[in-house]
Structures are given as C-alpha cells and as structure tokens.
C-alpha cells in the first residue's frame, strides 16, 4: 500500500490527464471561445464568524493574492485558492471547515457564458444586476449552485459550485446547454489559477 493516495474530482477528466498536487486533472487544451473547466481540485474553505473578517459581505467576492474570498452567506465566506493551499485566515471565534472534497467547482468562460446560464438559471445576469465579482446562490439545472462572476481577460467568466455528488450532472447540463454555442472542455492550465 505504498501507493500515494490520488484525489479525484467528481467530474470525469478529459484526456490528457496529469497529477497536480495529488489530484488527477485534465490538461486538455481548447481554443473555443466558450469553455467549461473543472476546477474542483481548488482548495475551498468555509469560514463562519460573527466578526467582520473581510471587508465585503454576502453577495460579493474579492481577490486577495491567489485567493478569491466569496461572501457566500450572512456571516459566512468561502475561500477559493490554489490546489493544496492552506488559507492564513483563521481567527479566533471563527469556524473553519475545509470543503475542498465536498464541492464540485467549475468555470464557465467566454462572452456567451451568460447565454448558456440563461438556459439553466432564472437569475438576471445583466451588468447592473450581476457585475463582476457578484456572488449568489441559485438553481442551475435544478441543482443548488453557488455562482461567482469572476471575469477573466475582459471576458465573462463564472465559477459554479455545487455539492460534489451533483458535479458530473451539473457539468453535463452546462455542456448540453452550451452545445448550440460551441462550448468545449478546457483542462486546467499548469500552475494556473482555478
């Protein structure tokens, strides 16, 4: 039993695959304008505290170095970070729980990303109502999903997180909805952010 433990995402990895920090990840490359990437291996830490640990609250997210701090609920933050990273945010009187293995996380990227989500989610994704770094919880294809708008390179980009067990279903549902827009799977870029 000397074999090192390998962690697996709930989502089937598109070839080719590699091991990154103990996780099997896809290195598939796509030049499609609309892509979906499984970033479930990213560290996800839930922090609950009555104290204002972060300047922003429920409904917005903010970058702190490699971490994305998401105000995921009242007095609650979800910290998203690189694979294997440990957040230096623990303070007294806060509850910290590693949810890395409990949540699927995927990134939907491309200018047409809102058009895909429009087919699965009833939330108004327009700029005034849902600006960059807005965070909210909604039903996506009938799955409770935490959504963060996290634009990349000036293009619309959304992080979607759900319970791990529904991850493959949600991933497949987004691909189904994005088929008419030419969605493709993009693997994780080596050393890239989630």
């Amino acid at each position, binding site marked *: *039993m000397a*074999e*090192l*433990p*390998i*962690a*697996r*995402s*709930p989502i089937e990895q598109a070839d080719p695959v590699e091991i990154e920090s103990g*996780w099997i990840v896809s290195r598939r490359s796509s030049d499609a304008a609309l892509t979906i990437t499984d970033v*479930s*291996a990213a560290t996800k830490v*839930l922090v*609950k505290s009555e104290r204002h640990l972060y300047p922003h*609250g*429920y*409904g*917005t997210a903010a970058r702190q170095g490699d971490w994305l701090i998401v*105000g995921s609920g009242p007095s609650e933050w979800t910290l998203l970070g690189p694979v294997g990273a440990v957040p230096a945010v623990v303070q007294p009187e806060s*509850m910290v*729980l590693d*949810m*890395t*293995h*409990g*949540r699927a996380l995927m990134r939907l990227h491309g200018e047409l990303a809102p058009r895909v989500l*429009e*087919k*699965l*989610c*009833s*939330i*108004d*994704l*327009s700029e*005034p*109502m849902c*600006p960059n770094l*807005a*965070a*909210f919880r909604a039903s996506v*294809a*009938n*799955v409770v999903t935490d959504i963060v708008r996290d634009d990349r390179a000036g293009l619309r980009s959304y992080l979607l997180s759900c*319970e*791990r*067990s*529904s991850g*493959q*279903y*949600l991933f497949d*549902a987004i691909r*189904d*909805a994005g088929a*008419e827009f030419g969605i493709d799977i993009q693997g994780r870029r080596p050393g890239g952010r989630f």
Partner: protein
Amino acid sequence: MTNRLPVQPGEIIDRGSQVEFTFDGRSHRGHPGDTIASALLANEVTVLSRSFKYHRPRGVMSATYLDPGATVQVGDEPNVRGAHRRLEPGMEVISQNRWPSLGFDLLAANDLLGRFLTAGFYYKTFIKPQRLWPWYDSVLSKFAAGGTVSPDTAHGHFDKRFVHPDVLVAGGGLAGMAAALSAAVEGASVMLVEEEYELGGMLCFDPARLNLLAEMRSAVVDHPGIEVLTNSVVTGRYDDNWVAIVQRGLPSIHERLIKARAKCLVVAPGLIERPYVFEGNDLPGVMLSTAVRRLINLWAVKPGSKAVVMSANESGDDAVADLERAGVDVRHVANARDGAGIVRAGGNKKRVAWVEVSGAGRIACDLVVTATGWTAPTSLMNMAGDRPIYDARAARFFPSQLPEDVMATGRITGDGTDAELAEHAAATGYEAARRAAGRGRSWQAARAWAAPVDPGDLPPPKEIRPLARQDHPELFRSSTHGIVDFGEDVTSKDILAGAREGYDSIELVKRFTTVTMGPNQGKLETVNAVAVLAEARSQTISEVGTTVWRPPYAPITLGALGGRPWEPVRYSPMQPWHSSHEAVGLVAGQWIRPDHYGDPAAEVKNVRTNVGVIDVTPLGKLDLRGPDVSHLLNMVYVNKWAKLDVGAVRYGVMCAEDGVILDDGVTGRLGPDHYLMTTTSSGAAGVWEWIENWLQTEHPEWRVHVTPVTTGYASMNVAGPRSRELLARLVHDIDLSPESFPYMTVRQGSIAGVDCFMWRIGFTGELSFEIHVPAGYGLHVWESLFTAGADLGIGAFGVEAQRIMRLEKGHFIVGQDTDGLMQGYSAGIDWMIKLDKEDFAGKPELGWQQQHESDRLVALQPLDPKIVPPEASQIIDDHRIAGRITSSRFSPTLNRSICLGVVAHHLASPGTVITIRLPDRTEAQATVMEHHAHFDHEGSRLRG
C-alpha cells in the same frame, strides 16, 4: 407553378433554387421562402383542408399564422399552420379532417345534415341515456378533427431560456421597430419579438413602403442594444411583467419557451383584418385584402384570375391596385363606404365561382376579396388587466387603462401616417426606457449586496401625443348568414339561435356555440361574434362587450412547456468502480446507488462469513460545532446527550412536535465542541432544515455552527467477521482491538494514507467499521480495501443485501417501517425516550402516547418459512385490518422468511399468531417474536 408571378419588388422567395415537397402524396415544387400555402396556391391547389364540423372545403383566407383554412399535417406533426410554416425540402404535407381523401370526403355528409347539427346539438343529443355515453364517446371520437400523432414519434429537442430585458416589444411592425429603436437609443436593453419570419409587419407587402422598411430593419438589426426574435410570439403576460415567449424554428431546437421578466412591456401587435360574414364566405377563393396583398407581394402568387373586391378602407383599395398590377381581372369593386356590399357567394368543390353584390347582381369570378375592418388583438393588454373599449366610429376596440409597466403603440392605439405612427412609437419607446430605468434602479437597490446605486436623474418624461382614430364603417354581416368562426364552423345562425335560447351574454354564447374557442381563440372572429349577438339582442357592441383573452395568445407545445428534462442525479465517488463491476443501480432520491452486484443472497452470506464493503456515501452528515451542540442534540433527539464522551457514538431518534418519528442516525463526538451527526440518506436535507429551524428561530442564543458535509466524505462500511483483520492491513495509527476501539465509538486516523473518521457501528449486525474519508480519496481507499482483502474473501454488497441483514438484525428503516403517523413508542424505542428530560421535540405527544395503547412495530416469522408476505400486506384480525407488513425478505442466514410489521396493540405480545392476507387473497399465519432481531439478539457478533 402556373400561378407564379414575375419578380415582385418585395418578394421573399429565392427563385434561384427550388424545393420539392408532396401534398397528399402528390409532388410539387416551391421556392425557399414559400409557405406551404403559398407554394400550393402557386401550384394551383386551392383546397388545403376540410373544415372542423361540416367538412367544407377550405383554402387560403388570411395567408397568415391565423389562416383557418390552411391547417395541415407535416410528417408526424399535426395541426401545422400551413400559411405560416415555411417550405422545407422533402416535406410531406397531408391534408386534415377528411376521409378518405380531400377531394372525396364522406364526412362532408355533415354539411348536408347541417340544419340538424346546430349549436347545442351535441349537448342536447348525447346527454341521455347516460349509460350509452361510453358508446357515444367511442363513436364521436372518430369524428374528432385534427391530425394524428404516431406513438413512435421521436422526442423533439425543446428548451427554455430566462431573460430580463429592460423593454420587451411585442410586434415587429413599423411601430414596434420604432419603439424598440427609441428605447435602445435611450440605453435600454430591448427584446423585439415578431411573429413572422421578417420584421416589418404590413410594410413588408406594400411596394410603396419598401424603402422605409429597409431603413427601419437595418437600423434595428444593427443596434447592439436590440435582440430581435422572429418567428416568435409573446404568448402571455403575467403578474409583474413575467412574459412568456415562444421561439420557433431554431436550429435543432423544435421550440423554445422564453421566460422574460421585462421591466416594461410595449405592445405593438398592429391590427388583424376581420372577415365579413355572408353566405359562402368560407369558399376557397374568398380572401381578405391583406391575404391577396401578401400572396402577390411576398410570394409572387396570383391569387385568382377574375376578382370582385368589397372595400371599406385603404387596404381594400391597395389590394385592387395589387391585383390589377398582377394581371388579375378585377371585375367589380363594391365600395362599402358607399353602402355597397357582398350579399352571398357560391361555387364548386374547388373554389368560389360567383358572387352576388348589392346593386350589381351576380358576377362570375374565382376570387372574392373583402376589406371590411380590423380587429385589435388586445390579448396582452387584457392579461395586464385592461378591458378594451369599443369605438363605433372606428369600428374596433381600443385599450383603455394600462398598468405602469405596460404600454401600447401602433395601430392598436390609433391611426395615422407612417410618420405619425413612428413618432408615437418613438415617444412610447422613450417612455418605456425611462420607466424601465426607474424600475431597474429600484431592483438594484434591493440586491442582497446592495451596492449604492447612483440615483441620478431619470430622463424627463416625454409627451406621447395620442394617435387619431380614423372613421370606418361598421361592417360585420351581410343580409345573409355565413361562417363567423372558421375554426369551429360556427355560423351567424348558431349565434342567433343561442341568443334565442336565452344565452344573453357573450361569455355564455361562446360556451354554447363554441364561437371563438377554436385554434385562433377569437382573433379573427370575436368582433363579428359580438356584433351578431348585439344584433340579436338589439344592443350595441359596447353593451355586449367582449370575451376575455387569456394566455396563451398562440399555441405552445407541451414539449416547450416541459423544456429540457433537468432531473439531477447524484453519484458517489466510488461510482466508477460500481459501474465497472456490473452493479445494478437503484434510484434512491436523486442518488444512484448499487442495489446489488448480481446475487444479494450471496452478498449476505459473504458478509456473515468473510468481509463485505458497502458504499454508504449518501448517508446524511452534518458537521456540528460550538459549545451548545449538546443542548441542540438534547432538543432534537428523544434520548439524552449531555454526557456523551469525546470519542463516543450514540444512536438517536428524532421525533417531530407531534411525536411522529422524523429521522434516526448516530452522532459521534469528535472533540469537546465538535460533533458529526449522521442522518438517513433521504432525510439529510430535512434534518438540516429542522436543525436550522431550531437554531435560527427557537434558540438563536445557542452557539452552534451546522454545516452539511454529506458529500464531503466518501463513506463505506466494512462488515463481517474478518473486517478487523482487513483493516489492520491498511490502518496503522488506530488501535483496532475491541478493548481500545469498542462498539459505538469513533476514532480519527488514516487508512491507506488518507485521513479518516472510523466508527464502530453498523446496520448489518456484524462486526463493522464505518469509514469516512475526504470524498476525493474515496475511490483510492475503496480500491485499496479490495486489493488488501483479496485473500480474505472481500466482496462488495449493495443496498438489497444490507436491507436483508438489517431485517435479520431487526433494525427499522424510517419511512419504510414507520410512516407519517407512527409515534415513538409504536416503533418500540421505549427504552430510548427520556420523558424526564427537561424538554425535547415531541415530548408532550410522546408523554400522552406512553399513557395509551397504540399500535406496535414487531418482528414476525411466518409459520410456513417459505412464504414471504409482500410488503404492505394486510394483517387481519376478526375480519378487520389490524396492521400491515412493513418489511419482508427471505433470510439466507436463517433460511426462512422474516418480517417486520405494525400490529394492533392487542396482537403485539410475543407468541401471538397473527393472520396475514396475501395479494392472491389467501392467508398466512405468522408468530410475533420476542425481539425485533431475528438474528444475534444479544449482539455478540457486532460487539466482537
């Protein structure tokens, strides 16, 4: 295609290519851009269908989606609007409502019997005798109109879309385009919805206005703030401007339902030309003026060769000009503004042959054109609460009071030149954008994150000068009777008969005669129906009023309503292993679980003999942290929790306030202020909600953080006499001996290099270890167990084997052995219920139950060990139902049948022999056992 005209300036057909299709098996050709109806007319086919009731031959009348004479079957799709659906290569078009053929329809005998088939015939004739109704039903159903759907029809692709435009414009004519442009210029996001395939409305078939059309179209299409949906229709407006749109003709998507939340809805549907009621008005070749204009200008189809026109407005005059330009011999124009009009028409089976005109006598012709007025399609405004008002001078209805978030523009509100209409629409679009901006700001301010919204100043309101109303003669019916509702074959005589029978309200007449209840839902017929009733009752149209238009405005497929079947499924991390080992799946809630791997009985024997592993990931898991967790546990469980040591595990049952069993599971104390609670798989969400309710509303002072972590862990139970031996090969930092790690305790350590929680608990009655590891490592640990245990006879077991073993052990399952009425004492957990606790959920009810006799859950063994009474079999006592079997299986361990069942209190004593009624109505006897456990009551195996 002998009726095809030379190139017309605004035609939309592509003459560069041809489309082959068949109609009732006969081959024809058309061009891309043709509708089914225009192509058939170009091929000199004038009869397209038979009517609903009298099976009269019908042809093109309006040349729009609403054309009642052009409904056909296309392949497997029935009731296709043939005057709207574009031709496609290889299309197989079949006429409807005829037998055996369109030309020779025996069902047309109904027309001969028409005088006996008046309104109310159906209701009056078939109501008695009641016992014959099934026979009537079977015969009448053979006469049902419409096409046919094959059961083998492939499921089409349908989906939905949610949009939130600032301004939604319904109608893409001149006014709709102008309003959309104006709103977009003001910065609004605009969705413009047009029923036809191209924007433009009536501009499209007016050669004199093609430049204006091109200019408007390009301005709209080029504007980035406007999304144009053609071949789409707004079907309903609901509260708070929730607007439904049906979008058709998308690539590979049959139909899409768009759910729009519009900040402002602009209704710009234009007007619908109204037919005229006279004898013979449904003959093929009798057309509306807009129909002949469409046919000539859009599809270059010559609608006839010898025409008579009745004109009361510019549309009729323009039709005359178009007809003459197309080479049609216009034999007579009856100017209805001067009182001239059509009296009746007649013809043969294929088309109209003559028309009688007042003052001009009988004129031979093959085309009769009427231009007698307009119907305002006020549906969306009706749905917004408006009751349209009739204006006798203009001979049509107009909107009256609209809510703030609904506006109207275009000819539905008045008449005018193109410039006047565009000006009105532009002002309306500006105001719609202004109102939308106001609403948008209030919505932004209500966001959870509530970033400050710069209130700024909304643009100033702009005056919308009302459009004038052009005088128009009131023309509804000639001196003869004819069809009012072409979809339902309702005549003006039927309406008069209804009035004579006392149906004095238009709503009652509608239901008695079915007028306006056909496929067009009154869009062509309503005003004529109202006018005929007004005539019968010597009232004005205003006094009669209209029926209420309700959604949907246009038909919508069930597929579009359903959309994509998004039904979430949940998988364990070990699913790939299950799939590759031929697991037979079981749908448990949303979870897909292995029911068994081929032989559940063998799986049981292996667990009892060697070692087995089951995937129990779906078990609900809640992480509880904080100094007040024990208070919470004491409240939600019926037993005591104040003295649970760190490292200890306790079984608990939750009851609701009424004492009914809610859920059960074990909770372990992982640290001084840290617990892990497990729940049933199906109860996980409900228990979380239940706990949050206690924490948020009943005891907000308790310091407890609860977090669902069900899928954070892959969970597996290793069970069997060799389970400890197996784990010893993979676990090196936990002392697995019974002395150090006894039954009902929990330890933290690692397995196969992965951190884990390990519990000494199980559902099977065997020595068991329940292991929870971070879910991403679940498959690694699972596979490691099988590698390490190959020589120990390790085997996977599924839900079915687990259910057999738990029944052997006498463990009940909440929801199977309990129901929505079973209180705690009935389940036999008397030893657990601690009424001496200060308080807990369900305590008063359980206190009451303790003092009263109630049904009991007991173990049962049939006297004949081969009989396995099916679950839910009744238990009978003195010919009365005295209980039921809740669980039953054949036990491979005991080689006999075993059960759990609920029995009346007086039958619950051990040794009582009860009677079970089996589904084949035979009976079997069974003995009530002393304990729930059929096997190892002392628990020596699980404590080993």
